[in-house]
């Protein structure tokens, strides 16, 4: 297992690359869902206001 | 029945979140003037700019002589003269130069035609002066002179009387009546009393 982690001495380059990719993918997923949720909330408010005074 | 010059149907337009024009429609014949009135911010300028094709419609169509203006915009524009809030004139050029260059975009024109146009709007004396040195009212009259020089079957004017004194307002009405009698059509956004006979005036109040 240790040998795997060392990546033949290149660990200091390989793992940061994977870590960065994982972080960016995670952020993308979070921001995508967040932007959808915000838009849905905005639409809900719009529909509520339209229904209360059509 | 005179052919419908300008028709608009089911126009929807937003400004930011506000739904300004909600399914508006009208038909305008030659010799008629549509007077658009309504409170500030209700969308008069937006409607006029939409009629000029400057603002794209979210829904609806505008037709000039039966053809959607978007199909042949250049043909529609060659018949159109627009006077917006801004005069569209350059401060560093003299009044005469401004009119010369504005009209030359459409047709050959001689300097004395320019002077005649300035005389028509009651400001012949401004010809040699740079526009920057003229008063707002004088600049507006030069813009009105440009309108009369550009010709065109359809005039669209946004608050033509702004910054004008009583004499200037009268000039607006004279130009408009001459244009309508010559068979032209006009859309004017103004609260000024245009003094047109009922047969020629089509009021449109925006809420």
């Amino acid at each position, binding site marked *: 297992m240790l040998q795997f982690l060392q990546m033949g001495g290149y660990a200091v380059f390989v793992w940061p690359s994977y870590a960065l990719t994982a972080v960016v993918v995670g952020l993308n997923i979070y921001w995508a869902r967040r932007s959808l949720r915000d838009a849905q909330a905005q639409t809900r408010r719009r529909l509520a206001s339209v229904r209360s005074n059509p | 029945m005179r052919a419908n010059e300008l028709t608009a149907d089911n126009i929807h337009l937003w400004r930011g979140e506000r739904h300004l024009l909600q399914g508006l429609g009208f038909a305008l014949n030659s010799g008629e003037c549509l007077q658009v009135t309504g409170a500030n911010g209700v969308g008069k300028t937006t409607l006029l700019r939409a009629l000029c094709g*400057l603002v794209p419609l979210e829904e609806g169509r505008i037709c000039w002589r039966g053809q959607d203006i978007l199909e042949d915009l250049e043909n529609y524009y060659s*018949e159109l003269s*627009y006077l917006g809030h801004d005069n569209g004139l350059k*401060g560093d050029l003299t009044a005469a130069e401004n009119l010369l260059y504005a009209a030359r*975009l459409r*047709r050959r024109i001689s300097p004395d035609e320019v002077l005649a146009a300035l005389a028509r709007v009651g400001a012949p004396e401004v010809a040699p002066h740079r526009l920057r040195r003229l008063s707002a009212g004088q600049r507006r009259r030069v813009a009105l002179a440009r309108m009369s020089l550009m010709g065109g079957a359809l005039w669209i004017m946004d608050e033509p009387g702004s910054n004008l004194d009583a004499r200037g307002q009268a000039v607006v009405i004279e130009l408009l009546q001459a244009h309508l009698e010559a068979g032209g059509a006009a859309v004017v956004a103004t609260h000024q009393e245009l003094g047109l006979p009922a047969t020629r005036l089509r009021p449109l109040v925006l809420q």
Partner: protein
Amino acid sequence: MSEQRIGFAAAAAALMARDLRLALRRSGDTLQPLGFFLVVTTLFPLALDPELSRLRDIAPAALWVGALLSSLLALDRLFREDAQDGALEQLALCGWPFAGLLLAKTAVHWLLTGLPLVLIAPLAATALGAPYAAMPGILASLFLGTLALSLIGAVGAGLTMSLNRNGSLLALLVLPLAAPVLIFGARATALAIAGEPLAAPLYLLAALSVLGATLAPWALAAAVRIGLE
């Protein structure tokens, strides 16, 4: 109305005459980018050392970065004023192809900012140690380069003309698109200075100008129309 209809060329000529007269009335403004170009190119020797042979190596960079930045400076004023005072609106509504008129306007802009820069470049080049024999090559490359820059930059100017606080947005939009012009232009100038044949980069530079001339009109008309909304 005596309808002596005129052709598009006459309308474009009237527009160009108006812009030229306007520019002459405010010659101070039009010479500003030129002054900027000279200042930028004189900064490089101050930052390096006065040794002409050393300067010769960086001359292409100094000339071209100077040309790029000064044309960027001039571009911001290309449409902004006409958009604000309503003149651009009148141009859009006059019934002639808008792309053609905007191209004429950009041509005048190039005549007032690009061409003078090309004509004054030998002065700056000599100051940077370029040999006399290199002048034709420098003139040719800058001629084509400033043309392409004006065309690409005009699209950026159209997109940002009605934004009040665009600041460096115009630069951010234009510079990546202008990178190829910078690469081929600087290379052509370097070859000219070295006295080697510079046909290859010149052809590529010419190709960029032609591409600009074909793509820019559509993009220009669309960008300005959107800015006028």
